[in-house]
Each structure stands twice: as structure tokens, then as C-alpha cells.
């Protein structure tokens, strides 16, 4: 079995693409902040300085200057920046996060409220579907080879003691090719099982899920 798995797993090396196991090392799980944003300068409102020689003591001036005058001399203030509500804190998302997790550790109801997560999941399922089809075909081919091998070996074995030398030679060849075909069939079955048992790469889905729902917002790495 281990030899069969070795034959299945080893093959022709990739020349340009990388092994699936190396993908996480080539992916950044989150954005790397090289430089944070600089705060916008605030616009000061000119309401009359307490130490102004014209106004005198601040308290007296505050009681006597009419609000309209204050409004005229005040410069327009910039609206404060709006902090967007994180997606994970939306009510529907919070509710979905409470649902039981699937085999990938993602709450099952989350796929319905987050189309991006669902898109990643669909991709994995599409790859799995193709893989299962190939695995099924490979196993069927292996069984077919096994059936042919059984037939060839049984025919060969039944003619091994034939008085005709030519028949004995043919029987020997039938057994030989039957064994080879049987070995091929066995390899096909093992290969098909290995392909069926393999799984799609969850890196893109899990990267998105962790960044969107699990990664803590560290002030040191925040974009703000």
C-alpha cells in the first residue's frame, strides 16, 4: 500500500508552478501596513479668543456676544471622518457567527450572508467534483484491468500443461501480461482512491475567513 501510495504521489516534478503545500508561504494572510495614514488637520473655529484686547475678560464677552455674530465669524468645521461598521459586526453576520461550524471551522450560516465566502466554498466544491469524477473513472479502469488480468492469468494457467509447446509459450505470455495488467489495475485503483481522498486547498477560503472574522484589529498594524 505504501509503495502504491508512493507511486501515486510521486510523478513528474513541476517546472514552473509550485507544490500546493507551499501556497500559504506565498500568500499574505493580511495587508502589511508599511505606513499609516496621517490624521487630517482639524479646522479651528474662530469664536473670539479670551485674551483678545477687543473683548477683554473672556467670561464677560461670552455673555454679551450674540450667537449670530459668533456664527458669522466662525469658519466652517470639517465633518469628522466616519468609521465604517466592520462587516463582522453587522446584525445578520453576528447571528450567523453563532451557528455550528463546518469541517473547515466556518459557521455554516455564514455562507448565506457572505457571498465572498460562498464563492470560495463553491470553488473548492467544483475542484472536488472534478477530482471525484476522475477518481471514479480511474477506479473503474482499474477494476477493468483487474478483470482482464484475471481472465488472462486463468487462461494461461489452464494451458500451462498443454502438450503443445507453442500453446505452453502462449500460456506463459498470457500469465506474464496478465500479471502486468493486474499490477496496472491495482495501481489505478490505489491512485483513484488517493485522488478521491485528497481535498481541495482551503487556503483562500480560510485566509479570507480569518482576516474578516477572526483577525484582531491590532492598533499597531491598523490602517488608521
Amino acid at each position, binding site marked *: 500500500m505504501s509503495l502504491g501510495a508512493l*507511486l*501515486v*504521489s*510521486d*510523478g*513528474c*516534478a*513541476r*517546472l*514552473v*508552478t*509550485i507544490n*500546493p503545500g507551499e*501556497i500559504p508561504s*506565498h*500568500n*499574505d494572510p493580511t*495587508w*502589511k*501596513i*508599511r*505606513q*499609516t*495614514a*496621517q490624521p*487630517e488637520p482639524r479646522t479651528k473655529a474662530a469664536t473670539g479668543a479670551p485674551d483678545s484686547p477687543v473683548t477683554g475678560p473672556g467670561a464677560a464677552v461670552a455673555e454679551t456676544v450674540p450667537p449670530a455674530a459668533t456664527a458669522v465669524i466662525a469658519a466652517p468645521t470639517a*465633518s469628522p*471622518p*466616519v*468609521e*465604517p461598521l*466592520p*462587516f463582522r459586526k453587522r446584525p445578520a453576520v453576528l447571528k450567523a457567527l453563532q451557528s455550528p461550524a463546518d469541517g473547515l471551522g466556518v459557521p455554516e450560516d455564514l455562507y448565506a450572508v457572505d*457571498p*465572498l465566502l460562498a*464563492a*470560495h466554498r463553491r*470553488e473548492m466544491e*467544483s*475542484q472536488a467534483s*472534478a*477530482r471525484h469524477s*476522475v477518481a471514479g*473513472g*480511474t477506479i473503474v479502469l482499474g477494476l477493468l484491468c483487474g478483470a482482464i488480468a484475471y481472465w488472462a492469468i486463468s487462461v494461461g494457467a489452464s494451458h500451462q500443461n498443454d502438450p503443445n509447446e507453442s500453446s505452453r509459450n502462449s500460456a506463459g505470455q498470457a500469465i506474464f501480461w496478465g500479471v*502486468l495488467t493486474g499490477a*496496472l489495475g491495482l*495501481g489505478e485503483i*490505489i*491512485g*483513484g482512491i488517493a*485522488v478521491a481522498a485528497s481535498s*481541495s*486547498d482551503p487556503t*483562500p477560503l480560510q*485566509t*479570507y475567513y480569518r482576516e*474578516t472574522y477572526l483577525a484582531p484589529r491590532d492598533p499597531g498594524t491598523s*490602517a*488608521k
Partner: protein
Amino acid sequence: MVLATGVLPGCGAADATIVFPEQGAVATGSRRGEGREVVLVRPFADQRHEDRCGMKKNGYGSPIAKIFCSGDARSSLENLLVSELRGAGFKVLRDRAQAGPSTIILVGTLEKLFVEPDLNYFTSAYEADVALKLSARTTTGLWAERHFYVKGVEATVTGSDQDIQRSFDSGIRQMVTSVVGAVANLAEEIPIVPSAGEAP
């Protein structure tokens, strides 16, 4: 039969051409953009080491044919990203000069786009590796970088051109989905600064 199985994944030694999927084929259905402004600076830089988009190999792992992209790979990927960012609700500006303080300015570098068969003794698959580096900036001084690497995989028996195309489509879909999600998450970190006199 052994020889046939060994060379079958590489059969069809003619060069092949793959096309980028239509925008509808990579649509995620997400609306996380919510009107946030984005600028995609074009063209992307190209750091690929290959002038082709893939190769076919025989049972011994030797290249026997080339796979080419229909049209310019960079601009095709840029078009897909722009269309899907718009589809996700982002407001994609055409000109960097239009960027406001909350606009995310994306500069990309295409590092790899290649389709190659992974041949084993009894099974095989076509793999499409797509690698993209994005740099995100705002006019307020934010600068963030991120590497994306995805692999589209299509298990195959015959190694047909359709399987090559499916693996490529899978890789491109994953890249577009990953980028849209990452930009949406970055946008949540950037406060929306309204223009003077404009209500937030």
C-alpha cells in the same frame, strides 16, 4: 496500455490558447464595496519570467507544447478586477487624480500566471498558478502591501484543452475573489472622510 496511460495526459502535442473568463463567470455576488472609492492604476507591472501562459508535458515530464493567453494577460486581469470591484459595490474611479482622502489607490504587479500539468503515474491534474502583488495607498499617506497566490486545479484523465481552460478559470476566479475580499477588508480600516460641507 501502460504506454497509452503514460502518454495520455500529454496527448495532443499542439499548442493551446486559453481565454480569460467572462465577468459573469467570476462574479461573487458580494456587495461589500458599499460605494467606497477605488482606483486601479493601469497597467500592472509584469514580473513574469515566462512569455507564455503554460505548457503541456508528456508522460516523462518534458514540455511538448505551449499554452498561450488570448490577448494581453495583464489587461485582461485588470479588466476583470475592475468589473468585479464594481460588481461588488465599489466605485471604481478612472483617474488617480480623482482620488479623495478615502480613496484606495491600487497598484498591481503580476508575478506569475502559468498553467502546467501535474502528472502522476496513474492520475494527473492541470494547475493554474496566479500570483499578484498589490500595493494600496491613500492620499492621506496610508501604504499597505499584500501578496496573493492562488492555484486553480482541474483533475483530468485526457489532459484536454477544456481541462486546461477549466483550471485557468478556477485560478482566475480565486484571484478575483481573494482581491475583492482583501480590498473590502482594507476599506473597513480606512475612515470615510467626507468632502468639506458634505454630510458624512
